[in-house]
């Protein structure tokens, strides 16, 4: 995952990257593992500036899927701080650039929610529900959006 140039660049440009190794930092792993409920490796936790978890990835993912999850996490970080424009941009980037990843349906859902939260226009939700009739129809996220039709 990490040797991928796109992954490394996205992490370097957007985060302070921090690592706790299960064996080489056993005391830290126990301490911070308990604090953030990390019980398996790899577990990658997205923290806001106050140290509050906003997203996590558990288990290995291929490069494209990992990259998509990083973008979803950045979207969630922006969403939780009320920056809906930035959140929508990250979510939409997943749908536009990594549409075949497992994260794409989730990103399409949250892009619509972000658009609605930023604009207050319910049409954003209706448009999102309609988008799910074109793709990702069988996803859990399509079911969640179906109420907006």
């Amino acid at each position, binding site marked *: 995952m*990490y040797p991928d*140039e796109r992954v*490394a*660049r996205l*992490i*370097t440009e*957007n*985060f*302070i*990257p*921090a*690592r*706790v*190794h*299960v*064996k*080489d*930092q056993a005391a*830290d*792993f126990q301490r*911070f*593992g308990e604090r*953030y409920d*990390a019980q*398996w*490796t*790899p*577990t*990658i*936790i*997205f*923290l*806001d*500036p*106050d*140290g509050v978890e906003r997203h996590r990835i558990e288990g290995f993912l291929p490069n494209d899927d990992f990259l998509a999850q*990083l973008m979803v996490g*950045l979207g969630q*970080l922006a969403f939780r701080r009320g920056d809906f424009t930035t959140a929508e941009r990250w979510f939409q980037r997943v749908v536009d650039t990594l549409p075949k990843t497992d994260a794409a349906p989730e990103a399409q859902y949250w892009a619509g929610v972000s658009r609605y939260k930023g604009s207050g226009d319910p049409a954003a939700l209706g448009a999102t529900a309609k988008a799910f009739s074109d793709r990702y129809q069988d996803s859990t996220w399509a079911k969640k959006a179906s109420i907006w039709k």
Partner: protein
Amino acid sequence: MNIDWRHDIDRVLTDAKARNKYVLLDFSAAPM
């Protein structure tokens, strides 16, 4: 491009708050 992972987690959390930065915290078993 290599990722410059930090291992001083307490300091990382302090820096993140001071600099208003996000943290990607990787619990790993990969060879270091």
